[in-house]
């Protein structure tokens, strides 16, 4: 059980299509890995083991900057082992974990513990986000700088917003002295009220209480104004509305340090899915699935880069919790293991995007947002990558997942692209759908 395990073996991935969004280069060829790093092909490889990459893409270091791994304290939903396995199975080399655990990750010792556990498990880099406010209570700032020293890469009260305007101003101004952003779950809870789905034609038909899109938009408009006031680092989590995008566009046009992410489910589904699945809580998520007109705006914003990143918002819950009636079930979708295929389906098939541009949103962009450096596929850089079959078309089968949470609106939906292997620091974390269990308890 060592910590930062590096692979000692040498591997040659042959005839693979390299898609390197970090350097905006794509080529066909061989990739050599040894001593945990990418190696120059001319290096005197110590008889590398050959792996055919024919028909596959090699994508360096996918980072999912928004996941809930539920540990400490909610291990009946997910824990760091099952969550790490789900990430590796999903193709990710790194995840940013949201701090709304029990207790909330609001002190440096909890940040250190999560990182250490992640290393011990060894399947994915666990990059904690610390809470913005103590216990995410929205009253006092948490020790952001101390948490950053302990390894936190961002700050969020996710699950709820930093509602108090004065406190958000304080957080953003403080963030100007830090490397990580304030990641805001933008929701005016007095407007969302008891809503459980998007407020619109479908909620009217079904009789479910609705959340207007404006509950998000008004909060993002407030926050971008505060970002201007403070020169703070604002990252808007799981953006889902045209109104919020207008605020982000305004912020970027004014040169503010504002970024945004979107989830695969908001790019893929609409509120009609709630009706199609007849009140099954697998569609219950916050922010809610939006109408097609919103989805089209999100797609174009993701394509243009107005939305910088794609993040899963993997939010696992126990099957018993998701088995409650719609209005009583918790918000959240288990989505680490569908993220890559959902993004490829939308990006390649629906938007006809160039894979280099599309995959920036899951690689270089989240690194940039979090102030992390990674060079891409260059000799000497850590050998972190996913091998993806971009042409596989398979129905989603949660029975093959590693997350403890198998409830998904993608059940049985055919998606394009399958992650066939994940490597972290020169060691296989997953191959052919099988996660290496040596790191697991």
């Amino acid at each position: 059980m060592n910590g930062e395990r590096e692979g000692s073996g040498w591997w040659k991935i042959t005839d693979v299509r390299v898609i390197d969004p970090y350097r905006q280069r794509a080529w066909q060829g061989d990739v050599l890995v040894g001593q945990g790093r990418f190696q120059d092909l001319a290096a005197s490889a110590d008889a590398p083991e050959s792996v055919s990459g024919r028909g596959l893409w090699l994508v360096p270091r996918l980072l999912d900057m928004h996941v809930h791994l539920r540990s400490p304290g909610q291990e009946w939903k997910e824990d760091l082992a099952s969550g790490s396995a789900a990430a590796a199975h999903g193709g990710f080399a790194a995840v940013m974990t949201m701090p709304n655990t029990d207790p909330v990750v609001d002190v440096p010792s909890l940040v250190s513990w999560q990182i250490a556990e992640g290393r011990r498990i060894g399947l994915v880099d666990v990059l904690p986000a610390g809470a913005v406010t103590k216990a995410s209570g929205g009253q006092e700032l948490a020790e952001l700088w101390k948490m950053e020293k302990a390894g936190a890469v961002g700050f969020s009260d996710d699950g709820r917003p930093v509602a108090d305007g004065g406190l958000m101003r304080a957080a953003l101004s403080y963030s100007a002295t830090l490397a990580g952003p304030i990641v805001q779950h933008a929701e005016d809870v007095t407007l969302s009220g008891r809503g459980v789905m998007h407020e619109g034609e479908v909620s009217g038909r079904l009789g479910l209480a609705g959340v207007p899109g404006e509950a998000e938009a008004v909060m993002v408009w407030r926050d971008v104004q505060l970002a201007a006031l403070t020169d703070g680092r604002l990252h808007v989590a799981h953006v889902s509305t045209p109104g919020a995008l207008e605020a982000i566009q305004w912020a970027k046009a004014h040169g503010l340090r504002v970024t945004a992410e979107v989830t695969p489910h908001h790019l893929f589904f609409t509120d009609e899915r709630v009706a199609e699945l007849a009140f099954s809580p697998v569609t219950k998520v916050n922010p809610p699935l939006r109408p097609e007109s919103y989805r089209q705006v999100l797609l174009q914003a993701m394509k243009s880069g107005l939305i910088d990143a794609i993040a899963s918002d993997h939010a696992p819950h126990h099957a018993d919790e998701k088995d409650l009636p719609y209005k009583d079930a918790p918000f959240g979708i288990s989505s680490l293991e569908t993220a890559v295929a959902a993004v490829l389906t939308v990006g390649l098939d629906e938007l006809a995007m160039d894979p280099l541009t599309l995959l920036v949103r899951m690689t270089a962009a989240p690194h940039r947002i979090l102030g992390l450096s990674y060079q891409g596929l260059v000799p000497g850089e850590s050998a972190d990558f996913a091998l993806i079959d971009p042409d596989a078309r398979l129905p989603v089968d949660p029975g093959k997942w590693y997350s403890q949470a198998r409830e998904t609106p993608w059940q049985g939906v055919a998606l394009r692209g399958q992650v066939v292997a994940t490597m972290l620091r020169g060691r296989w974390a997953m191959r052919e759908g099988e996660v290496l269990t040596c790191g697991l308890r």
Partner: protein
Amino acid sequence: MRDLIALGDLSRAQLEDLLDLAAAMKEIIRRPVKKVPTLRGKAVANVFFEASTRTRNSFELAGKYLGADVINFQARGSSVEKGETLWDTVRTMRAMRVDAVIVRHQAEGVPGEMAARLDIPVINAGDGAHQHPTQGLLDLLTIRDRLGHIAGLTVTIVGDVLHSRVARSDIEGLLQLGAKVRLVGPPALIPGRWDSPHVRIYTDLAEALAGAQVVQVLRIQRERQASGGIPSLREYHDRWGITPAGLGLADAEVLVLHPGPQNRGVEIDSAVVDDPKRSAIQDQVENGVAVRMAVLYRLVGGKEAME
């Protein structure tokens, strides 16, 4: 048709069949001796997770008039059950070998999910703000009995449409049978839009009543005042309450319905409730038993009984 979850699930023919059958059932309940042996030996569970007197009694009588054994299961407490889960309760009912479940629940979607988990008929007696299909059926029967037809009528639904399962069932049934629907109420209590060319949304009561042949008056809940939907019950009455004067704008033969219980002097004046020419409220109660008999007969009656 194995279950009755939403009126929109029924074809026009199925709706008309149930209404015809209900008309026949009305003959039975007007007899001095009402009991018929059609469902003798069948057990029906009335499972109510939300308080109800009228609907539960109506279903209970409907089952008993048809000769079925009816048990009442009144669950208490919040929608999130303590201890035994909702679905465990459902499995328990099934293990008791009941032949049908009538369910009311405060959470939208529960009867449908129950139907998916049970291999016996499930009848929705009201789920949150989603559907109340037997209320929709009895409203249709009442209109048809009094006016002779439904196709081509203009029906105005007044009040808190947004939170009303009755309104949703009425709308689906009325559209299926060819009526036009107007929705009217305070802006915060009506849906922003409804995807049908035959549904129009108003905030002005006078416009919505002009020429209407049927007015369905919804109950206004006092808590809508606290949530900002209306400033006060008396302001609501002055703008959206149904009064004899307001009805003067409607068709001369206008029929007034109310799913009950009425807040007299709030959403409807006593002079309207008690006007035998216009008010069909007492007919609705009688028709409620008849349509529930029809539904039980169709869903629980054996094949031989149906032919």
